[in-house]
């Protein structure tokens, strides 16, 4: 059972994963400007502490669902950066063989099930997984990561009610980055403090500094313990900020530059570095950062060299029509 404070090694590993995520995000920004990405890319730089801190507070057997902005969660849950990047670039070596794209990455063996680009979709998804653990009496926990925009969806309410009613082993992690797509939360939410809603389900609600990876880790670890004890769900609001635009398809600009500067000064990697300096030689941290950067650069190189997929008939486990549903599709699959 994880304690609520990570060991020094665990903290270092979180730091490393945050740096990897950061490198991924920044490189994606560059490649996007060069016209080399496909579809929108939702960067999470400045928010890495949430996805990484939360997933590293879980056990390997636990599961997590996340949003369209899930890169930190993917890396935090232990997915191979190279295969994540490959999926983002639609390569056959990606976790979905290029079929999923960056918003919908899933790796079942890692309990990363999965990215979900229907806003709010990650919430009932984790709740259902928690139900299956309860039915099977498995000692596993499900974590739902979702945004402040998603907190206004009906499924958020329905899921929280059911989870609290049945004391399901699920953790609701609201990643509050102050914005929906382009709209500030004050134009979307009737309350500024989301934790007050927890009382409406009789579950504990707690706000944490989302830019402090130790705080996020601690809150999620405690919630996981509650869940494992059979005490049901917890709502955690991780307060952070989106320093970039919503995605590569918008340029931001609706944020107040002063506020952006304020949050950039509280960059989660900087915060973490300062924390590490208390007990670990900064040179060691720097070496680790350099290694992470190099690892990510190599991952990009490898992934971008991987081939694009070829269109194929459905595999043996697939439920899609193998007999074509109309003559036009007869050239697809095995035919009729």
């Amino acid at each position, binding site marked *: 059972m994880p304690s609520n404070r990570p060991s020094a090694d665990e903290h270092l590993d979180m730091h490393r994963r945050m740096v990897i995520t950061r490198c991924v995000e920044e490189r994606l920004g560059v490649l996007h400007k060069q016209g080399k990405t496909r579809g929108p890319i939702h960067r999470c730089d400045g928010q890495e502490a949430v996805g990484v801190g939360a997933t590293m507070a879980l056990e390997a057997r636990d*599961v997590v*669902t996340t949003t369209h902005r899930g890169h930190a969660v993917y890396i935090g849950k232990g997915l191979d950066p190279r295969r994540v990047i490959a999926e983002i670039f639609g390569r056959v070596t990606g976790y979905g063989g290029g079929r999923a794209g960056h918003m919908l990455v899933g790796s079942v063996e890692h309990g990363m099930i999965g990215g979900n680009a229907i806003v709010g979709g990650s919430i009932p998804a984790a709740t*259902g*997984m928690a139900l299956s653990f309860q039915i099977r009496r498995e000692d596993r926990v499900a974590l739902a990561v979702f945004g402040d925009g998603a907190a206004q969806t009906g499924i958020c309410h*329905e899921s929280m009610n059911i989870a609290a*009613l049945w004391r399901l082993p699920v953790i609701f992690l609201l990643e509050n980055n102050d914005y929906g797509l382009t709209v500030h939360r004050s134009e979307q939410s009737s309350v500024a403090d989301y934790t007050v809603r927890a009382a409406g389900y009789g579950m504990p609600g707690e706000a944490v500094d989302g830019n402090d990876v130790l705080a996020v880790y601690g809150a999620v670890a405690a919630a996981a313990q509650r869940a494992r004890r059979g005490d049901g769900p917890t709502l955690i609001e991780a307060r952070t900020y989106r320093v970039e635009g919503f995605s590569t398809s918008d340029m931001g600009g609706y944020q107040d530059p002063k506020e952006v500067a304020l949050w950039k000064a509280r960059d989660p990697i900087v915060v973490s570095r300062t924390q590490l300096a208390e007990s670990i030689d900064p040179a060691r941290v720097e070496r680790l950062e350099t290694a992470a950067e190099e690892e990510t650069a190599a991952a990009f190189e490898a992934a971008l060299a991987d081939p694009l997929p070829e269109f194929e008939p459905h595999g043996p*486990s697939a*439920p899609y*029509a193998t007999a074509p549903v109309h003559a036009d599709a007869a050239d697809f699959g095995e035919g009729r």
Partner: protein
Amino acid sequence: MAMMRYAEALNTALREAMAADETVFVFGEDIATYGGVFKVTQGLREAFGDRVRDTPISEQTLAAMAVSASMTGTRPVLEIMYADFMPLTLDALVNQASIYNYIWNEQVTMPFVLRTQGGGGVGTAAQHAKSLDAFVAHIPGLKVVAPVTPADARGLLLAAIRDPHPVIILEHKLLYNTRGDVPDQAEPVEIGRARVVRPGADISLFATSRMVLEAEKAADVLAGEGVSAEVIDLRSLRPLDLDAIARSIAKTNHAVVVNEGWGFCGFAAELSATIMDYAFDDLDAPVQRVAALDMPIPYAQPLEERVIPDVARIVAAARRALD
């Protein structure tokens, strides 16, 4: 063989599946303590404890939970009380269940079952009498079945629960009390196979769910006019039994398709188009669609009975085809 009511046959299948596999669980509104408003789940709570759960009224989330629970080791069977509430489940079906097997490169299958019941005839009015078959049949990655007989109700439900993929079961409120023979042994009925209800030579009547019973009556009427009608219960709306369809038309050269949902972009349209795709050269006349009129289901009986297809309209359609 034992005589059973349709509702009992479904109940039997659920018991058999739950006894055989402890990863099967059943949930939905009023299905545990009360046993379901159509009594399909009666007694399951007593037999299987917390694998049988009453839920809050939260269809959208329940459907999404069925999808995700099925990815982590269980086989959920969700009851949605009326087909009219299926729109609330469609995000879970079309944006979730439909996609993961493919986009995750076959890392997952999703063995869940969603049971619901639709149809009119008893004054439940515009929000509780629809047949929205087309909404689910449109979605790749799902299977959609509609048993008519108690034997098929049991056999298709058993097959659905064992299937690695999502299966939607469309029951009908007017079928629950019908009776029929059911085999003594638990035998799944293969999904995707139509059933020839009665063979015939002059025209094929393809129908689904309760409309199969109306088609049988229509075949009686037509027989009186010297027309030999073949009645085919499709049983599975997705996938379709293309061979059975083509075989029948090759023999009769005429077809009527009957579905209780609306016609426009409905299941009857698909069937008509499929027949054109696969059997055009065998057709001597256009396929006739019989479906609900293009309007809400009215409450008062003289209105409702005009909107929902019946034997008279099937007979009229057959006559048009043979004209």
